C-alpha cells in the first residue's frame, strides 16, 4: 500500500476538470456545495458549462436530465445524503426511468463525514440507488480508481451513481490499474475465507488479511467497486474456493454490498457470511477515525468477523 493519501472527491474534481477540456459536451451541476464536492475546479475552468442550482436538489436532478436530453453529459454533485435522499424520486423518474445519460457523483458518503453528525452521514444511499432499475452503482476505493471510474462513466452512456468520500484515503491501486465497470478485482490471494469490500473498507480488509496471515489464516481480499451490476463470477469463485465470506462497507448492512452479496450467494452457493457495516443505526458526530472504531469498521473488527465465519464454516 502506498503512503500516498488523497480524498476521492479531490480525484473527482481534478478528473472532471480534465474531462471538461476533452469533451465540450460535459457539463456540471451542483447545489451550493461545489467547494466541497470539488466541482468548483470544473466551474473555474468552464464557467459557461457549470450550473450552480442553489440549495434545490430536486430541480438540479431534473435539470440534469433535461441537459442529457439535449445531448449533454451532465455530472451532478452534492453530498450523498442530498443526492439520494432529497432528489430520490427525481433520480428515479427523470434520470433512471428514461435511462438519461446523467452521472450522479455524490461526495461525503458514509460516516466518515464525521463531525456534522447523523443528519449528514448517508448510510442508506447505496441500498436506495441499487434498488432502482437502470442504475449503475460504483464506490471507488481510492483516488486512482475514482479517476478511472469517472472517466468510464463519462464514456459510457446511461445513468450512474458514484459514491465518494470526504477524507483522504490511502492509494491502493497503481497507475497501471485497469478499471472495468462491473468487474471486481482480487487484491490478495487466500483460501480460508474471503473479504469482499468496497470503498474505503477495502484498505481495512487488506490490513485485516495481513493480521490474519500472522495467525496462519489465509484470507482472500476481493474489491468490488461496481456494486451494481455485481461481478457475480468473482464472488461465486470466492464462495466456492474459500467457503466463507465477510463483506465490508461504510454503509448500512441492509441493502448495500453485504445485501447484494448475500442475495446472490443465497440463491447460488450459500456459505457462512458476515456483513460488516453500520448495523441499522444512524450516524453520529465525532472524528472520522473515532467513528470507524465506534461503528466497528476497523481491521480488528474484520478479524473478529472472520473468526465468526470460520467457526460457522467449521461446523
Amino acid at each position: 500500500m502506498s503512503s500516498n493519501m488523497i480524498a476521492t472527491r479531490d480525484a473527482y474534481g481534478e478528473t472532471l476538470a480534465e474531462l471538461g477540456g476533452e469533451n465540450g459536451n460535459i457539463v456540471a451541476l451542483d447545489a451550493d456545495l461545489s467547494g466541497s464536492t470539488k466541482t468548483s475546479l470544473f466551474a473555474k475552468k468552464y464557467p459557461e458549462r457549470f450550473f450552480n442550482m442553489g440549495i434545490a436538489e430536486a430541480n438540479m436532478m431534473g435539470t440534469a436530465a433535461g441537459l442529457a436530453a439535449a445531448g449533454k453529459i451532465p455530472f451532478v454533485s452534492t453530498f450523498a445524503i442530498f443526492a439520494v435522499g432529497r432528489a430520490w424520486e427525481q433520480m428515479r423518474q427523470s434520470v433512471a426511468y428514461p435511462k438519461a445519460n446523467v452521472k450522479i457523483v455524490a461526495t461525503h458518503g458514509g460516516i466518515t463525514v464525521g463531525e456534522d453528525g447523523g443528519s449528514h452521514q448517508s448510510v442508506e444511499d447505496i441500498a436506495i440507488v441499487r434498488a432502482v432499475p437502470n442504475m449503475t452503482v460504483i464506490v471507488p476505493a481510492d483516488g486512482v480508481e475514482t479517476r478511472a471510474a469517472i472517466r468510464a462513466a463519462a464514456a459510457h452512456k446511461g445513468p450512474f451513481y458514484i459514491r465518494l468520500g470526504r477524507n483522504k484515503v490511502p492509494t491502493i491501486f497503481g497507475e497501471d490499474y485497469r478499471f472495468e465497470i462491473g468487474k471486481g478485482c482480487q487484491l490478495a490471494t487466500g483460501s480460508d475465507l474471503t473479504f469482499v469490500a468496497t470503498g474505503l473498507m477495502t484498505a481495512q480488509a487488506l490490513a485485516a488479511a495481513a493480521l490474519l496471515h500472522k495467525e496462519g489464516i489465509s484470507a482472500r481480499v476481493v474489491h468490488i467497486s461496481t456494486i451494481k451490476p455485481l461481478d457475480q463470477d468473482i464472488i461465486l469463485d470466492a464462495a466456492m474456493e474459500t467457503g466463507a465470506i465477510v463483506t465490508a462497507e461504510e454503509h448500512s448492512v441492509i441493502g448495500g454490498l453485504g445485501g447484494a452479496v448475500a442475495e446472490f450467494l443465497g440463491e447460488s452457493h450459500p456459505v457462512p457470511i458476515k456483513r460488516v457495516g453500520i448495523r441499522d443505526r444512524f450516524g453520529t458526530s465525532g472524528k472520522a477515525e473515532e467513528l470507524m472504531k465506534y461503528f466497528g469498521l476497523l481491521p480488528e473488527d474484520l478479524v473478529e468477523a472472520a473468526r465468526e465465519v470460520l467457526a460457522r464454516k467449521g461446523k
Partner: protein
Amino acid sequence: MKETIANLEDKARELRVAIVRTLHKSQSGHTGGSLSAIDMITALYFHKMRHDPDNPEWIERDRFVLSKGHAAPAQYVALAHAGYFPKEDLMMLRRLGSHLQGHPDSKSTPGVEVCTGSLGQGLSMANGMALGLRLDNRPCRVYALLGDGELQEGQVWEAAMAASHYKIDNLCALVDANALQIDGEVAKVMAVAPIAAKFKTFGWHALEIDGHDMSAILAALEHAETIKGQPTVIVANTVKGKGVSFFENKASYHGVPPSDDELPKALECLGCLD
C-alpha cells in the same frame, strides 16, 4: 391568419374526438385534463413548433414537455395525427406491450422527449433542455405544459427560480389552469392563485389568456418568442373536460374514461355523429 385559426380549431375538434375514442377504448386514463389542454397542444404541434414527424430526433426541432403527464392522451393523439406513428396505435393506449404508456415515456414513444407523469418535474427538465440547446447556439425553443394543481409541487418553484436566474428565454411554460384537481377545486385543496403574479415575482414574463381561444393562444405564443432575457409563462384559463358538456368542470372526470353509454353523447357534443 383567419384561415389558419379556423383550420386549427377544426384540428382541435378532430383531436378531441380522438381523445374521447382513445380513452373509451382503453377504459383507463385522464379525460378532463386532456380535453382542457388540447387547444394549446394543437396550436403547438400543428402551427407553432418546428418539428419533423419523419425525423423525431431532428436536432433543430423545438421541444415539448408534457409536465402534466396524465394528459398523455392529448399528446399522443397530436403525435399520431401529426404522423409520428399510425393513428391505429392509439387504440392500444395503456395496453401491455403498447408503446403508448399510461404516462409519457421517451423510451417508448416517438416524439416524446422525456419521461413525465410524476408531477412537478417537467419544468426542471425543460430548463435543462433549453440550457443545453442554448449552449449549442441552437435556435430551438422549449415548451412545457403544466397543470395548475401541479403548481403545488415545490420543485416547480425551484425550477421557476432557476429559469429566471439563468435567463432562459428560449423556454415558454404554459399552465393549463382548469381550476380542478383530483380531490376537487384547486382553490379549496391548496390554493395556487394568483398564478401569473407568482411567476412574475419569480422574475418571469407572464401572460394570461383564455386557453380555448385559438387566436389568443397563437398571439401569446408569438408574443412569448419576442421576450428576451427572461422566461415566459402563459397562464391559460381552461375548462376541465372542455367540449363534452357533461364532462365539463367536473373533478370526478379527472381520471375517468367515457363509458359505452357516454361515448355517443360525447361524440355528439363534439359534432361527430358517426
